[in-house]
């Protein structure tokens, strides 16, 4: 069977001098779902950045006069049991979800990527032992791991990021490692080695750039999962603490209790989480299809 060359991070058929807009337009045409995902993600990033401008009320200001209020002209998405404006809290929640999601994904993916790169390149006993250690990390249920870490480290944004990043490390390591394994056998790598190029140089100069593709795909795939884990942890009361509004925590305790009287308490934060994860998954899929067709099966 023919060995396919490593994919290069340029969409198929792109002309060398295409502007950014042309590439984007092509992307939208070829992968409409991915484009939709991209739009959702962009929306989320913009909301997170401009939360202070987009809000209509202070997200932590309580208002005893209008608790569990239905959506109206003043409170676009209604208010919660303490009278806090839900729209403003969702807008700020984007910031939390995005920051925690991106930070933990990057942290986990980078750490895992480095481990996978070294493990795959060095091979032999190191690889075997590293694999077993990663197996151990991966064998523990993701939520349980995050739960225990959260309890161990205490509630704070940094600790939640660390807790969520830990289960990502073995997955990232695995993906990068398999990528490295296949590239390692490439002829140009053999050529470089035979020319006497240092191992580290080979690793970082030749192999690393070719793992960027799978790395990006991995990140976008894990981002959705990280956002979900943060939401679940917050729902269980172990995630980001007050006063940072978190979509997951908005769903815990009071939301379900008052769901009958104020269904918007339950619906809107959940929709927000779903849209964010949905967008990141769509985008991730499309990126994967474009960047590395080989990985479609993984």
């Amino acid at each position: 069977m023919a060995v396919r060359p490593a994919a290069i991070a340029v969409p198929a058929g792109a002309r060398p001098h295409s502007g950014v807009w042309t590439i984007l337009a092509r992307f939208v045409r070829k992968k409409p779902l991915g484009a939709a995902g991209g739009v959702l993600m962009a929306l989320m990033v913009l909301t997170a950045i401009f939360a202070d401008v987009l809000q209509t009320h202070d997200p932590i200001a309580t208002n005893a006069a209008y608790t569990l209020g239905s959506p109206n002209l003043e409170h676009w998405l209604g208010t919660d049991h303490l009278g806090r404006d839900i729209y403003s809290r969702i807008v700020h929640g984007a910031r939390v979800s995005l920051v925690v999601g991106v930070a933990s994904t990057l942290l986990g993916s980078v750490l895992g990527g480095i481990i996978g790169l070294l493990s795959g390149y060095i091979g032999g006993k190191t690889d075997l032992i590293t694999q077993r250690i990663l197996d151990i990390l991966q064998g523990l249920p993701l939520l349980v791991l995050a739960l225990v870490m959260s309890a161990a480290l205490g509630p704070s944004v940094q600790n939640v990021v660390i807790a969520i990043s830990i289960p990502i490390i073995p997955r990232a390591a695995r993906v990068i490692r398999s990528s490295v394994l296949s590239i390692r056998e490439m002829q140009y790598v053999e050529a470089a080695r035979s020319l006497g190029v240092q191992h580290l140089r080979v690793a970082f100069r030749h192999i690393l750039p070719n793992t960027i593709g799978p790395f990006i795909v991995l990140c976008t795939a894990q981002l959705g999962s990280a956002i979900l884990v943060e939401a679940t942890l917050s729902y269980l009361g172990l995630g980001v603490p007050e006063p940072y509004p978190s979509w997951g925590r908005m769903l815990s305790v009071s939301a379900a209790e008052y769901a009958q009287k104020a269904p918007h308490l339950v619906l809107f934060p959940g929709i927000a989480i779903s849209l964010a994860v949905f967008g990141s998954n769509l985008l991730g899929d499309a990126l994967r299809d474009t960047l590395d067709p080989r990985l479609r099966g993984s």
Partner: protein
Amino acid sequence: MTRSRALPLLGVLILVFSTLTLATPAQTQTPKSGRTLNIMLREDLSQGFAIHESSTISTVFPAAPCFNNLVQFDPAKPIESTDTIVGDLAEKWSWQDNYRNLVFFLRKNVKWHDGKPFSSKDVKFTFDMLREGPDAPAKLRINPRKDWYANVEAVEAPDPNTVVFRLKRAQPSLLSMLASGYTPIYAAHIPPANYRTTCVGTGPFKVKEWRKGEYLDYAKNPDYFIKGRPYLDGLHYVVIVERGTRTAALQAGQLDVAFPGETTKAAAEQLKKAVPKLVVTPVGTAVTDNIIMNSKKPPFDNPKVRLAVSYAIDRKGLIQAVHQGAGVPGAAMAPRPYGVWGMADKDLLALPGYGQPADMKAKAKKLLAESGVAQPIRVEMVTRAIAVYVDMASFVINELKQVGIDATLKQIETAQWHAMATRGDYQIGANLTGLGVDDPDANLYENFACGSPRNYSFYCDEHVTKMIDQQSQELDPKRRLGIVVTIQKKLEEDAARPVLDHRIDYFTFWPHVKGLVPHHNIYNFARMQDVWSDK
């Protein structure tokens, strides 16, 4: 009819109507025997049925049907006081020697659930164990209420149906403490540790099955010492951790009775709207929101700073914002009609935090300026990592910000809270305190006496401690009330542990549940002896 005439008439009509609906229902119907009730539990029993080794409603409420006390607060009356104490295992009792000896005459023909006969031996066993007397026959692993019996010199059982409590000095409160849901009688022939897994009591219901984390089943005790009771065939306590599912279950009729203290006003309104025939009763809970401040560490070692905190927090505002109105202002003891030892409204209004919010905050700022502490004051507020605490803490932080105290919130997990508070590893905290019985002795010693381990503020005023001892021995009820009110006033003026409000529960159950009268104390109406179902 002119408006000036209509209003008073309307007021009278409302008064009459509310009196009729809130009055204890007389037995207008004949109780029916049979049926099982489904009752809500917010979590599984903490230490099984070992009420003496725990202080949580999660143990007391589901374990109570298994036991009896010596005396109890009349199940049919919502308000509890020495006037409403009726017999349980004791038929008659009498104070002697100017409240220095308490004699109980016990019922005859009472049997433990395993068939063995009950006698004064069991009472002596229980209280010798509780007070950790020198010849104590058994030791409790954890003994939270040892101090309730600090004044008991000896417990004697001269014959199988008589028990005598000999006190070191007069203490009228002892009777109330014995009536609390926290004071059931254990069997002398059962090792106390067994109560953590099973229950052998004398109560109206016998434990049938306890599926850990899932449910607790009781069956009627056919040999109960009151003929014809209990009415119900059984009780089925269901553990539901998820709040939404709990409310949904009550609404859908899968549960007949809510868990005491867990129904907020908004939830009750929602339930009532969905099912108008549900019976909702606002009751006091004997739980207060309060602020603990470490008076051994800056900046709260400065009494002016502490007082400023108390002035800054708008009590009425908190009740509205955090509980949507489900609370009443009060000092250390619950105000009427929820308790009998509280301060009157007019006296409360003079206390910090009860006046106009703007005036109060201005006063707070002035106090801070006078205190000599550098502004703005930065502190860390701790609270337990439970939503109900966090909401309250968030409100308080907002209030403090307006007078120049910048507080950040740190949430402490349950496992670490008491250790942290006892050690004094904190500056200021948003706290909840539950009282097992509306009695000054049960409250004041534990929380405000010099050197008490649960005096988390490390408040120590010799004069107040003397007054607490004084009221404990005062036999004239009116004079005693006077001293207790003076103590409360002083505690608030010293900002020892400013009380923010007394919580109200909107206790809810289905209309076919009869004979269940919630008390203004979540711990004391759980026996289910006189409850019956009209379905």
